[in-house]
């Protein structure tokens, strides 16, 4: 739980899953996705973890993942996903895809931007954002990838 040091306001944030995002969660522009690199086989997996799913090795080190990647495949979620989905009400169709990062990992993520313009190979940028505020008043921070703006393509 963190307090926003920039504004001095008591504003608390949590990552949607422990070990998935870098700390601090203020400001959101500086937040990055976390991975784990296996010292034995070199594989990078999503989030912080202690054993390697590839070689069963141990001693994995957390590493921040790159902010920019390439769309490897995608689909469009046309109907409200089942269960406790925290997206906008009423539902707006959105992209979901695998974004390939230079660390050698393809990360599954919701995609921002126009669903009609999604295409394999397009440049995507990481974005941490407030998904919802929980019943304790804590902002829950999630992530998505959005089409890169011309400036950082």
């Amino acid at each position, binding site marked *: 739980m963190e307090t926003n040091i920039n504004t001095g306001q008591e504003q608390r944030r949590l990552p949607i899953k422990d070990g998935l995002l870098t700390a601090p969660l203020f400001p959101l522009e500086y937040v990055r996705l976390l991975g784990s690199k296996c010292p034995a086989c070199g594989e990078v997996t999503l989030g912080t973890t202690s054993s390697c799913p590839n070689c069963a090795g141990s001693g994995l080190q957390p590493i921040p993942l790159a902010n920019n990647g390439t769309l490897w495949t995608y*689909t469009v979620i046309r109907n409200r*996903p089942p269960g406790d989905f925290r997206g906008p009400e009423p539902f707006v169709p959105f992209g979901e895809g695998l974004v390939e990062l230079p660390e050698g990992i393809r990360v599954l993520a919701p995609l921002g931007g126009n669903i009609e313009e999604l295409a394999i190979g397009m440049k995507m940028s990481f974005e941490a954002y407030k998904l919802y505020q929980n019943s304790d008043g804590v902002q829950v921070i*999630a992530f998505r990838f959005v089409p890169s703006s011309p400036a950082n393509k």
Partner: protein
Amino acid sequence: MTDTFIVGVGMHKFGRFGDKPASEIGRDAVQMALADAGISWRDIEAAYLSTMYLPATSGARILRPLGATGIPICDVEAACASGGVALRQALLALQSGAHELVLVLGVEKMPRGFMDPLMLYDRWQVEMGMSTNPSYWAMRARRHMHEFGTTEKHIAKVAYKNHKNSVHNPYAMYRKEFSLDEILNSKLVCDPIRLLEICAPNEGAAAIVLATEKKARQLTSKPVQVAACVHTLARYSSDFRVPAESMSVNCVNPGPTEVTAQKAFQASSISPEEIDCFEVQDTDAFCELEIYEQLGLCPLGEAGRLIDEGVTEPSGRHPVNTSGGLICKGEPVGASHLGQIAEIVWQLRGQAESRQIPKAKVGLAHVLGAGGNCAVTILKTLQ
């Protein structure tokens, strides 16, 4: 190793059956299988229930009312591959010498619509909106189209074939033929996968009676031999399937269907070329295309050509899903593989009526699902 045989099969239609409880649906299939084998419940030495959505000890709850004979009954679960895993447990029991005559039952009565995502996903995935099962199928389809030029029409052709086959299957949920245009104009669920190209969760049951060779010879002159029954889990990053959250760029392992099928081919000394009929996991129509390649019916990237050439139609060299597949039967998860087994047994016995493949002698059933659980069973008639 002791040879193992199927001496009885039974099915309860797959579909929706109102208030009819899972226990009755299951017992209907059991009674049919026992009658088919010409035995009574008292003869069964052990039983295995395959289910994913029924509560604890459902095997005992469903089967003990047939007679509390004291036999061991346990429940087995491995998502869409549950039936294959239960079957394998039963075969191991026969091969170990522990039993000579056992029953495997698959039963499901699933909630309508989407399955509860927390059964398969972590909460954070659900909250972020990544809990639509067909999205995984869709993303694999999109990539295959990109790499190999597979088209939406290729995918629709699989659905066309399976809907057409289903008209002849009294155990299928949907038994209506659709034109290619109707399929291609049906609602997009997850691009490029459409409503008439995916399977629905539903209700149903299938039961299989298995025996050692000695016992099988006593019971029937036409037993069907289990040539192989293999279960594996996907190796690291070899399969992008619910609830995967990432995959590796650098690590390329053979996928679960390839690995499981290869093991089954080796164990049975049967090659895909020799197989007369297939029942496979067409959770969506694209998935069936992918499976053609993974089973070795065609090289990687050529599944579109295979469906174009009609190889997997009932009149083709390798008919696939003569039952209508999951797209038309629906997928009562725990019963799914055992329903495939029943279909293959009927084909091999020449009892598949208007679905009959002439002179079918060898058949393969394949299931694949959450967590990369895969099961492949190969059945053959005795020469």
